[in-house]
């Protein structure tokens, strides 16, 4: 591979758009080319700096009102909650008919899925691929999922409560794309996997040990949650309590 080719392809590498074969070719070139290695490093730094600064704009309230005013009116159905993205996701998939299948996990598969959740957790730690979107801002992480998944997980910043939001990632559980929201407490990573479930009833969180990791799972608002970490069972329970309570607060407020 020439530097000219690498100049273009290293961006695709950064963006995770390369297949494994091409990614290897670019990495091989970079390993032997200081110029392209420096470029890759600089672009990664630049991306991280842009992600860390909030360079988005917020639509002014009067613009929202102007657009609302132009829509035929209906009452009492406005639900601006942390689940807005989720509600939107299902609406879009129903309308779009693009063949995206909702993530539906059968309950008799729970044990196999628990072990897949642990595998996904381990992969995320080993591959240096913890996050696809690296941001401590829930308003950056949440929109990132939109359009990548037909079910956007609720993204809640718990930093003030001792669990730092690190970012989000697309992962695969049970052969399907699924959202993972990534948190940290001290040096411990928590992967929170979120999937749609046909079972709408609330189920209380419970912890189990799978292959030496604690998994805490619960069901709420038609979503299944799996929090997995090497944190102690107590601290993981604290995490899920705080998450559920924040979700309740936001959901009704």
């Amino acid at each position, binding site marked *: 591979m020439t530097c000219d080719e690498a100049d273009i392809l290293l961006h695709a590498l950064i963006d995770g758009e390369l297949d494994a074969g091409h990614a290897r070719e670019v990495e091989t070139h970079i390993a032997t080319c200081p110029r392209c290695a420096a470029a890759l490093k600089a672009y990664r730094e630049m991306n991280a700096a*842009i992600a860390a600064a909030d360079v988005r*704009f917020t*639509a002014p309230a009067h613009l929202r009102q102007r657009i609302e005013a132009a829509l035929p009116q209906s009452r009492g159905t406005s639900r601006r909650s942390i689940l807005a993205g989720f509600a939107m996701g299902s609406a879009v998939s129903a309308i779009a008919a693009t063949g995206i299948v909702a993530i539906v996990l059968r309950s008799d598969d729970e044990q196999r899925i628990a072990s897949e959740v642990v595998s996904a957790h381990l992969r995320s730690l080993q591959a240096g691929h913890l996050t696809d979107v690296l941001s401590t801002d829930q308003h950056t992480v949440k929109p990132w999922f939109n359009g990548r998944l037909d079910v956007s997980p609720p993204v809640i910043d718990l930093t003030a409560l001792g669990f730092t939001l690190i970012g989000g990632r697309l992962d695969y559980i049970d052969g399907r794309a699924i959202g993972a929201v990534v948190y940290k407490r001290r040096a411990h990573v928590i992967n929170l996997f979120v999937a749609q479930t046909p079972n709408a009833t609330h189920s209380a969180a419970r912890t189990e040990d799978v292959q030496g990791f604690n998994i805490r799972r619960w069901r709420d608002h038609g979503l299944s949650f799996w929090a997995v970490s090497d944190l102690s069972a107590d601290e993981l329970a604290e995490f899920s309590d705080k998450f559920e309570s924040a979700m309740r607060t936001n959901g009704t407020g």
Partner: protein
Amino acid sequence: MSNGEKQGITLVPGPRHTARARPAANTTMLFGSSRDDQVRAQRFREAALPYLDDVYTVARYLLRDPADAEDAVQECYLRALKHFDSYRGPAMKPWLLAILRNVCHAEFARRAKSNTTAMDDLPESAETTEPLWQESQDTPETEMLQKRDAGTIQRMIAALAEPFRETFVLREIQNLSYREIAETVGAPVGTVMSRLARARAMLRSAWLAEEEQPR
């Protein structure tokens, strides 16, 4: 990879167009208030309004004028509602952004006619604007990119020339995939890749140039 796309980068915003007449905001109801229309509008609300900030952000970067951006976003949503029945995908966000792009390009054409605004929005005039700095040919092999505040980064991104700015914003700020960008801007994926490489190279130069300026 050079496919005739313009080389110039400029930090100089064009003359502001403060005095020109702005068309009155169109707040006409597009539909009556029958039950079906209300259901449809509600579905549209749930599907499209969560992306309002995304659409507005892209409009701000493309048009570089808050008032023009507001008008463009409103027009985008009105057009989207009108075509909502025939919407079959792709994902909602790229669909909205493709509509926004058409609205913005109509605005570029209007600006070109009225000749009162940033000349570097017009590809044929890009080379005539005097750049404050040039994309450097040999970037140092070791460089430390200093953290920049959001306002500075926004300004540097807004200073990128089109069509590189558009591709950059869709990728970096909106997180669209290359394929989604290609569909949104109506260009092949290869073109998207070369534009993105150029955009990042220009921004990297701007970033380094910024560091050399006294603060």
